């Protein structure tokens, strides 16, 4: 059964596939005007005062819907949000009118020092309340709902009393926010913690999903010699993740999907071909759903 996506997000229809906008691709995009659902950017890269970055994004925005993906808000912090940074995010959102705004279930700032990574938090009654408060504050400041992204993790906390899927479900319930389902993060965390990614996806609150991320990862091992996947965003999406995506799309229905390739950024045609693959998966998923409906 397809879980209908009840959340409508202005400017983005379901079968919408996008890629991260990288400055090195600007000329190719402007010259070739590719058919794409949207472009996504890291909000922090557009918090300068002026110049080429903002100008280029204006030009992209004139032609395409935008998704604004924050990395520095530290929503998963125990302490209060950095209000100045929240205002900066709100200002970028106001200027570029993105169709989607998202941030991470992670912390990155602690006691005034920005640690420049997405760091994990335990899932407890205290943290679900704290994160929900922060999201309320963000949505109020932005004047819109945001999407919260599931993390890729390398450690789990002994004190966690909530499963990650329940934690996200509860936050969405309390705050009315949507969720950004990063299928690659599910795969990375599943390998790293030894759970079945299909199980996680079956438990995931799909009705809250407003966007999907797909990215590449890198193989390593931990001290115990067990496989460790790094959420590297530096390579094509691997086959196992495409499979999980297809399964998810069949259940969820067409959903805005981003190809997230931030490091060792490839030439434009390579990135575009990843987007086309996601589009095919959406079409195939829709076809299969219709097939099953016919049979029934």
């Amino acid at each position, binding site marked *: 059964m397809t879980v209908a996506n009840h959340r409508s997000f202005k400017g983005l229809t379901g079968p919408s596939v996008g890629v991260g906008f990288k400055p090195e691709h600007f000329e190719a995009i402007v010259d070739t005007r590719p058919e794409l659902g949207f472009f996504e950017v890291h909000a922090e890269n557009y918090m300068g005062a002026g110049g080429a970055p903002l100008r280029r994004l204006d030009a992209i925005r004139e032609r395409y819907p935008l998704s604004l993906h924050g990395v520095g808000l530290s929503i998963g912090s125990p302490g209060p949000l950095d209000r100045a940074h929240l205002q900066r995010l709100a200002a970028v959102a106001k200027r570029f009118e993105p169709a989607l705004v998202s941030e991470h279930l992670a912390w990155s700032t602690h006691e005034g020092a920005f640690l*420049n990574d997405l760091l994990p938090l335990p899932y407890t009654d205290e943290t679900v309340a704290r994160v929900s408060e922060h999201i309320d504050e963000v949505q109020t400041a932005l004047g819109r709902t945001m999407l919260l992204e599931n993390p890729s993790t390398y450690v789990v906390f002994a004190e966690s009393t909530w499963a990650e899927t329940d934690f996200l479900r509860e936050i969405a319930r309390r705050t009315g926010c949507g969720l950004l389902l990063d299928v690659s993060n599910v795969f990375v965390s599943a390998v790293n913690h030894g759970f079945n990614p299909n199980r996680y996806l079956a438990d995931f609150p799909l009705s809250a999903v407003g966007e999907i991320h797909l990215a590449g990862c890198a193989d390593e091992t931990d001290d115990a010699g067990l496989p460790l996947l790094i959420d590297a965003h530096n390579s094509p999406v691997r086959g196992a993740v495409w499979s999980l995506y297809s399964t998810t799309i069949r259940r969820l229905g067409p959903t805005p999907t981003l190809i997230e390739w931030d490091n060792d950024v490839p030439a434009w045609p390579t990135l575009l071909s990843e987007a086309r693959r996601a589009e095919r998966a959406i079409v195939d998923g829709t076809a299969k759903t219709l097939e099953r409906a016919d049979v029934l």
Partner: protein
Amino acid sequence: MSFETTIRAFAAALTAPSAPPPAMAHGRMGAPDARRFAVYRNNVTVGLIGSLEARYPVSRRIVGDDFFRAMARLYVSAHRPRSPLMVAYGDDFPNFIDARISEVQAGRNLDYLPDVARLENAWVEAYHAEDALVATIGEIVALSADQLPETRIGFHPAVRLLRLATPAASIWSSHQGDAVPSAPSDWIGEDALVTRPDCDVRVRVLPPLAYDFSLSLREGATLIEAALALNDPAFDLGTHLVGLIESGAIASILPGRTS
């Protein structure tokens, strides 16, 4: 353990490279795993080093990737970003290099390196600076002879003026594009003007007196005050003014009162 306590312990272990991984963060064996925790430590450092590599590409070419990474690693361990706004991170790296220049040189002549880094930092600041329309020659020409002396100049927000003790601007320029870098023919200090009238940053070596002239104007002096302060009867105000306008340094002309 409270949320705050857990995160504090995690953050403390993250920023102390030889500390053990925090007790409450586990791998698959129900115990801390150093390799897994190291992924986070590594991400923090590698990300910040990456920012410095992006900010100082010419300095990096001059000392080589490995040496630059080593310098960056030292800087990163001593300088944590105070804000998620990373556009300014690493802006004091030139001073860091300068303070360690004897270690950095190790037998080579690299006294120009801090100056090159200063110029690169100024370039990045100009790149991200606020937009403004630039003044035109026409606006200067339109001023009467009476107005000219008391006229003040509003500089474009992207303007950076640097007085360099070494020919670092020429060295920087020779590293642009595909050209093979060459040493400057004259080993003298240079005054550099960085501007960004539109989207592209421009770097110019200034002629003598231009730096002091521009600095006075930027500090609010009138044209006549700035020119007289140079104490040089040969100073050609018109030529210098035109040069500043053509560089895209000037955003506004504020005419003096006619008497």
